[in-house]
């Protein structure tokens, strides 16, 4: 009888011990997982905010491109003037000139507007 009581005590110790150890560590799993999920979400939000900023940056880069059509309109006028001048040269020389391409003399970003350059040249011509 004493041995049976001792065995029951033994199994009580074992079962209690295993249950309490697992319970304690499961509680820790739940808590740490919650914190981990919170920080993961915060990390994702940060990354989303960063990708929004990087999206805005290309948008700003395209804005100068949008300026280009304004320059293109100016270019069309310049091309029209060049064409008129070439046509006049053809009449004068008696030779038919054909415009194959029009290219800006600078790297595509003129330091001065074409009209402004023309005005400056006219104004400074006598000198």
């Amino acid at each position, binding site marked *: 009888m004493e041995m049976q009581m001792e065995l029951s005590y033994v199994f009580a110790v074992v079962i209690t011990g295993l249950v309490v150890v697992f319970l304690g560590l499961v509680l*820790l799993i739940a808590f740490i997982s919650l914190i981990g999920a919170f920080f993961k979400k915060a990390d994702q939000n940060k990354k989303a905010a960063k990708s929004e900023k990087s999206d805005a940056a290309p948008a700003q880069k395209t804005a100068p491109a949008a300026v280009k059509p304004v320059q293109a309109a100016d270019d069309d006028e310049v091309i029209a003037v060049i064409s008129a001048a070439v046509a006049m040269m053809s009449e004068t020389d008696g030779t038919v000139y054909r415009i194959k391409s029009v290219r800006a003399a600078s790297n595509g970003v003129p330091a001065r507007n074409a009209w402004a350059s023309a005005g400056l040249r006219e104004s400074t011509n006598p000198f």
Partner: protein
Amino acid sequence: MFEIFKDAIVSLAETSGFAGLDWKAIVMILISFVFMYLAIAKNFEPLLLLPISFGMLLTNLPFSGLYNPDLFIINEEGHIDVLNVLTNGGLLDLLYLGVKLQVYPPLIFLGIGCMTDFSPLIANPKSFLLGAAAQAGIFITFIGAALLGMSATEAGSIAIIGGADGPTAIYVSSRLLKPTDNINTGTIALAAYTYMALVPIIQPPIMKLLTTKKERGVVMEQLRTVSKTEKIIFPIAVTVVISLLVPSATPLVGMLMLGNLLKESGVCNRLVDTAQNALMNIVTIFLGVSVGATTQADKILNLSFAKVIILGVIAFGIGTAAGVLFGKLMYVATKGKVNPLIGSAGVSAVPMAARVSQKVGAQENPTNFLLMHAMGPNVAGVIGSAVAAGVLLSII
């Protein structure tokens, strides 16, 4: 004058150690030499095993008077007569007070906490389950010890060897064992540290027996990065949860987490440096030599020590097997994402058990880097064994 000379020589001879040398003392001294050899030549946990073995040598040299077990008998009020120890004790009696009053093991845990990185565990909290499963070795060994006729205090002290944690084993056995028991703290510590050193030999056959080639070859996903805030919250959370659940585990878990918090906070570098170096080394010396001093002949040269040795290896083996089997369960539950080999690292022999998982995994797939994944269960096992210790101390 010759008579005086003769009497002086006879008196010296009678009080010399040679007069008190019996076969038991000679055997114990030789055993201490064996453990010193294992510590120095074979590198078996030398930091503890060498002081323990030298303490064994000192205490078994006759008439040394360094350690007197009678001073540590519990009085009618249920305490040690500390004043008696301070007044009449030898050097090792005084140092042993740190063991008996449960001071040294928590201080060692403080240093361990400073040296431990819990990131793999925080990144993969499921590793806690593997750390819990490996503690089954403790409780199943408790059954075995009880069946061999040992008392509850002896069974609990032997069972904790299965946790593969030296300081925890010393902490539990120093609290539970009485001088009238057939074994003592020194016996437990000797077995615990010897088996911890044998982890690379004991574990691999069990791991290979319980897993298939396919399971051993599983490559696990890379762990996520853990933020500094999480690493700071972790030790605080563990302390609160575990201390509320098992208050008797607080000294061990609390000091472990204090050490970790000091490290992770980044603002206490001087304290961290002291805790993991000077303090830990001082405590290790005091603990080792004083625990070794308790390994006197009457506690070692008996059948109970043989039971400790056999049950100790059983505890280790069952702990390893339980961890691997739970790892297999997780392999099935996660549809092959968890390598069962990391389950064996749930025994808290840090970092040796994790290295063994890495080595056995690499034998299957040389490019498989399991070490960091195995560190999760490994450090979870430290917490798990401390909780198991708290449970044993609460119940027994």
